[in-house]
């Protein structure tokens, strides 16, 4: 079959040009307006295979030419419009909460246990370090903090006098969300970055509690921490676990390719990170409004802390109904989701 000559090509382009222009304007309409007349959609679908034929012809006439590139651009737009998966934010959220989160949590349960253990052991290490060598507290606390503690005052005691609750909350949740996301992202260093962050946070917590315990202030610090700390520490551990899984996907991808394993782990980590981020905002608000306010008694703080913590795990467990919990069916659903 001989290649068409210039005159034939010109005639063909001239004939097809109005169709391409019409298609281009329809694409623009369809991209900007989702409530287009069904007739426009039908017409665009009819022109889709015609455009494919035009590309085949254009590729033969001028394989890498501008006409081919233009037609391919138009073709890609139509293809995208035709095959774009439907979007439903409500359904995505429902699936995230009822299905994805329990599946992810179940799959990472042993890593979650490992990271929790790492955090607990680091906290104990920090505690013992400062208890055995009190001078090492200077590694974890600023001189002003240490002076205050030695004078029998916590750095949190007068925080409301100098800074409004709203500012404290915003500052705290920004910082916590950053740390949580950092502990996920830094997992790409084969999990080592996450281990470092979790270990460091644990050691610091233990050391600060030891420092206050040496001056009989640990109870007051616990009083301050309990309302927000349950969710805050759980979220950091959860995000750390996601970071570790991310690192593991690179180190030993198993049956998947390294790229696919990384992509899957990142998707899971993002879901966990999203939920933790939302809960950390709440924890920041509690830390700004309830934790530093002496008007709230310990019992109420404990109730808030444990209640909020349970809410986090209720969401992560797939928001089981009361009946499911009563009949013990939620755990089987939890495992079933993971098996699906």
């Amino acid at each position: 079959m001989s290649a068409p000559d210039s005159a034939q090509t010109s005639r063909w382009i001239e004939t097809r040009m109005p169709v391409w222009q019409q298609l281009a304007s329809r694409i623009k309409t369809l991209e900007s307006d989702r409530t287009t007349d069904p007739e426009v959609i039908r017409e665009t679908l009819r022109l889709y295979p015609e455009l494919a034929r035009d590309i085949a012809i254009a590729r033969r006439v001028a394989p890498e030419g501008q006409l081919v590139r233009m037609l391919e651009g138009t073709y890609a737009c139509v293809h995208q419009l035709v095959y774009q998966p439907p979007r439903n934010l409500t359904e995505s959220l429902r699936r995230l909460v009822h299905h994805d989160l329990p599946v992810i949590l179940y799959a990472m349960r042993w890593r979650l246990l490992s990271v929790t253990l790492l955090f607990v052991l680091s906290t104990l290490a920090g505690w013992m370090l400062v208890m055995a060598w009190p001078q090492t507290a200077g590694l974890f606390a600023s001189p002003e903090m240490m002076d205050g503690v030695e004078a029998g005052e916590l750095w949190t005691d007068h925080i409301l006098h100098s800074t409004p609750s709203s500012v404290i909350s915003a500052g705290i949740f920004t910082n916590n969300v950053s740390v949580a996301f950092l502990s996920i992202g830094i997992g790409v260093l084969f999990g080592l970055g996450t281990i470092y962050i979790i270990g460091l946070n644990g050691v610091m917590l233990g050391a600060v509690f030891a420092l206050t315990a040496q001056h009989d202030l640990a109870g007051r610090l616990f009083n301050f921490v309990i309302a927000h700390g349950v969710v805050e520490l759980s979220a950091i551990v959860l995000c750390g676990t996601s970071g570790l899984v991310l690192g593991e996907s690179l180190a030993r991808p198993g049956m998947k390719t390294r790229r696919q394993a990384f992509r899957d782990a990142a998707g899971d980590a993002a879901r966990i990170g999203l939920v933790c981020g939302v809960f950390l905002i709440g924890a920041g608000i509690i830390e700004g409004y309830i934790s530093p306010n002496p008007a709230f008694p310990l019992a109420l703080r404990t109730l808030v802390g444990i209640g909020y913590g349970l809410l986090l795990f209720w969401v992560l467990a797939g928001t089981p109904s009361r009946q499911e919990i009563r009949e013990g069916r939620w755990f089987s659903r939890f495992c079933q989701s993971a098996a699906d």
Partner: protein
Amino acid sequence: MSESINIASVTGIDVRMRIAGPGARSYAFIIDWHIRLLIALAWFLLGIILYGMGSASFEIQGLHSSWFFMVLLPALAIYTFYHPVLEILMAGRTPGKRMAGVRIVTLEGHVPGIGALIVRNLLRFVDSLPMFYALGLLCTMVTSQSVRVGDLAAGTVLIYDRPAGDTVKNLTEASLNRIGLQQNDLVRDLVSRWDELRPEVRRDLGEKLLMQLGVDIRGVKSDEVLFARLNLLLK
């Protein structure tokens, strides 16, 4: 290194999307970085002025929560959430990407979902390690599809965004009858790159092209006349 992603379609003709390289990515990023920095700074400075703090030193006497929420937090939010928010709202584009002529798509060629765009932006700070996006840039240079860590994780790729019907208006029947489609392509390429080429190179290329097309170039002394002759072929 792949130059394009090819997606099989029911018609038998692959959908071909050209992958944007590190240059186009960096160009888009630099534009975006300037835009978000300028908007965030503008908000911050306007806020300072409105709050009467625009004196010689920007010292803040006493931290007021309204100041924090109205001035500092929005400025930080603009800077931090510029990419994820705009990429979600503009279907994988940002003003910088639009100006650089690129956009984000999934490996299947679709507009990425919210989840993928969040993952992509969550890992932005990994790409920025140790500084100035060195890791991300290096990654785009060594990966087959010129992607950074965030793209690898999200399953996305940056492609050249060619709007539908982009060059149709520049093809005329007269020009095609005179010089044919392939030559029309060559002339158009040269004309579009005229200002970017060194004068001796563009002159050499222009003369060769015109001679090949049988155009008499005797007496053509200046660049302007040569350029006009080339343009005439496209009319």
